[in-house]
């Protein structure tokens, strides 16, 4: 079909994508791990290396394009989604990756973000959510938990944060997944899933900013607590979690509920079976909204539904117009309709 990424057998390695620029993130910043995962994924996609474009806005995370040896645009703050849309529409054969932060994407860039999702352009968005403005040194962001003390909230924030997953679904997004910067294997797997999804795929990477928001994800990343506070979603599998794999999620009436397997006669059969492809939004919305400590944080692909992409529809319209229009060039157009001559 027209308007799609072309793949072909190409032999590439990580080295094909490592740029010669010094990586300038703080030592210990979660961004490093994400970069490594992306470097691993690109060579696996069967796409010629000159067909990758990495687009970003402004923020620590948005320095990303400099560190990938691909075509790339380090844009202006908040506009990566619009820039990426222009790239993709311009040439649908390119594999377009957008890197953004919680501020870049959901503060100043919120509008472009919700629109790219509803248009469903085939763009892969990696949202580095450290719940803080890193580059400007520590002000709260739209994802900062309520009550947090930051440089601009000495008495704690009074803003209810966005949950990126919920916003994606509310904005008609077709793909949402969530991963941790501490789990490289899961990152590469999910980035591959995102790349394969035809449509806008949004991967929220919970990323640690060691300098301005250290340990904000501690509950779900540290060994002691993570197993009881996260659930790794697997397609078609019942939703089980916990250190001892003894807890599960079920639907009780209209709400989700954490249950213990074996207690009150509950078995795996009672649990929700994860279905990211379900076109209805309700359950996925609730899964995206699960928040520790009451619920485990859902990791993995939460929503992934098929829907035609913007660029395919556009290429189709163009093809149709080319076929059917009697006007083939500018000379035709200039002379079409009402004209009159002077001789």
């Amino acid at each position, binding site marked *: 079909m027209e308007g799609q990424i072309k793949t072909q057998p190409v032999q590439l390695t990580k080295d094909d994508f490592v*740029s010669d*620029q010094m990586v300038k993130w703080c030592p210990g910043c979660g961004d490093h791990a994400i970069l490594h995962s992306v470097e691993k994924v690109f060579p696996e996609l069967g796409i*010629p*290396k*000159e*067909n990758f*474009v*990495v*687009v970003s806005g*402004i923020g620590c995370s948005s320095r990303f*394009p*400099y560190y990938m*040896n*691909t*075509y*790339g*645009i*380090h*844009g*202006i703050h908040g*506009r990566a*989604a*619009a*820039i*990426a*849309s*222009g*790239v*993709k*529409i*311009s*040439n649908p*054969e*390119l594999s377009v990756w957008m890197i953004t932060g919680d501020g870049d994407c959901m503060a100043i860039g919120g*509008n*472009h973000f919700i*629109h790219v999702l509803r248009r469903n352009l085939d763009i892969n968005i990696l949202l580095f959510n450290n719940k803080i403005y890193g580059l400007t040194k520590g002000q709260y962001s739209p994802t900062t938990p309520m009550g947090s003390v930051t440089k601009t909230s000495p008495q704690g924030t009074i803003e209810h944060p966005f949950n990126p997953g919920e916003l994606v679904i509310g904005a008609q997004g077709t793909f949402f997944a969530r991963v941790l910067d501490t789990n490289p294997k899961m990152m590469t797997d999910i980035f591959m899933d995102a790349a394969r999804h035809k449509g806008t795929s949004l991967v929220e990477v919970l990323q640690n900013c060691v300098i301005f928001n250290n340990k904000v994800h501690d509950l779900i990343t540290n060994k002691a607590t993570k197993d009881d506070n996260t659930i790794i979603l697997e397609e078609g599998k019942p939703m089980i979690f916990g250190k001892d794999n003894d807890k599960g999620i079920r639907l009780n009436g209209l709400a989700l509920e954490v249950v213990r397997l074996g207690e009150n006669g509950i078995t795996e059969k009672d649990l929700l079976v994860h279905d990211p492809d379900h076109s209805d939004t309700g359950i996925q919305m609730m899964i995206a909204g699960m928040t520790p400590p009451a619920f485990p944080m859902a990791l993995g692909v939460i929503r992934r539904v098929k829907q035609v992409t913007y660029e395919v529809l*556009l290429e189709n*319209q*163009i093809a*149709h*117009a*080319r076929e*059917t*229009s009697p*006007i*083939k*060039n*500018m*000379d035709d*157009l*200039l*002379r079409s*309709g*009402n*004209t*009159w*001559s*002077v*001789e």
Partner: protein
Amino acid sequence: MLSKLPPECRIGQRKLYYPYLCRNSNPEEMGQRPGQVIELEDVVIRFAGDSGDGMQLTGSLFSDAAAQEGNVFATFPDYPAEIRAPQGTVAGVSGYQVHIGSKPIHTSGDLADVLVAMNPASLKSNLKWTKKGGIIIVDTDAFNDKGFERAGYAKDPLESGELDGYRVIRAPITNLVRESVKDLGVDHKVAGKSRNMFALGMLYYLFNINMETTMSFFEKKFRSNPLIVEANRRVLTAGYDYADTIEVISNTFNVAPAPLNTGTYRNLTGNQATAWGFMAAAEKAGRQIFLGSYPITPATEILQELSYHKQFGVKVFQAEDEIAGITSAIGASYTGSIAVTTTSGPGLSLKSEAIGLAVMTELPLVIVDVQRGGPSTGLPTKSEQSDLLQALYGRNGEAPVIIIAAQSSGDCFYAAFEATKLSLEHMTPVILLTDGYLANGSEMFRIPSMKDMPAIHPPIAQANDPDYKPYLRDEEKLRRQWAVPGTEGLRHRVGGLEKWDITGHVSHDPLNHQRMCELREEKVNRVANFIPKQEVVGPEENDLLVVSWGGTRGVILEAVQQMQAEGKKVSMMHLRHIYPLPLNVEEILGRYKKIIVCELNLGQLVKYLKINFPQYKYHQLNKIQGLPFMVKELVDACNALLED
């Protein structure tokens, strides 16, 4: 009586032969006509009615028909700010002015010779635009108490004496229309909708214009509904006949065909011409257009027009806002498209940050600003030369871009073409300034042949070029190369942080920053070597030089030519290239005793001229009323200076 002859007998300026309804070709039929035909050099007609009355259509049918008669024309619509304010109120009046002539004309005219007023509100709001002594055609059926009240007339203006000195033609149009179609069985609504065609018929009689063009328009437009075609035909004819019959005006008029250059002509509005100019440039450059845009009056029609031409592969992205419009275009430009974004003043403000990104990344991009009345939302449906300084300086840091200002509706085509060519060939954003007056106005456009349009050669980088460096420049134009994603061996990153010279890496080096700021400026300055020299209308040395820019050219030219005809020592320099200025502007300015800068703002070009050429003294004529200049205002101002 020229236009009464069958077209094929007329002077050799027409190509088409009009078989249909050459009803005036038989001199006998005109036997009863009392008066004579008065030859006019030009005439200005203003159609005014309710927003729903179809005045825009009426006006454009009139101009098309006149063009077929060999006249030149220019038109301008006068929309109300509301979509359709309450019927019969002044707020809801919509107007359309047509200027036709037998010699080159450049504007839609100052005051109207003929006003068509479909209701009292139209009369009320348009009388001031009508010449004392002019003809006013009214639909008396609409001049009733309800109409007066809605228009805010205390008493019947037709009786109050306020029209003394005008030649008023009263026609019970509403009733006559109903009469003329009653046996067709069309409903009241359809009849009401064709009142405008009755008025048009009257005008065709009055100006001895053949109705064929309009008749065939009906046929095409209402193809699927022969009844409507017939109804419109009848109404048009009824209007014609009515005017023929009533003998209110003792004469009719004729505007002779104009001596035009040979060629094929068409009618184009400025916005349409802009869109077509881009498509022409795309064809010449062999690259696809990407338009990223958000609707805004009066620029929307460019977006609309381009979205109708997917057969050329034009990609139109109706963005969520102006910022997405321009930034998507920057993405598309990086990807090798001819990137365009269109807007008006408030939208240009919103785009200003992103223009800086295009400057820093040194990518081609054309930003069209169809100027309107400001500040803020201002007068959105009115025209103004509001944004020259914004275009020049409305960005953070030193961010020079090329600025071109179209000078007529038709010139929008060439200006858009040239803007694209310069942008691509010099790898820099260009701001193209037009305005509401040009955008909505239309004029006869002589159709060029694409083979005569200049070639466009963007500096595309070649695959695997071992010498490719993202910010390496050529010596002549200082432009960098355009390396398009998908091309092997040229991967590179661009962005808004300062770039190292040549490599394009991020740089905070002090001297490099100075160098890059200077290089970016010099790159744009050198464009002066690639634009035509500035021309002057009139003697090369003179008492007075009238300086203008952009959309005012037509009226200023008329005024200057009128003064020149009167023997006044006036020349004219109209600037189309604003930044950089043509190299000879400084020298030209020095050859005149006095200089007057005429602008539809509080004095923006004059500031720019002082910056560039502080050695001269500039007088000013500034009008900021949402209206074009009038010839008389210009002549008066110039005369005052000449006599000073």
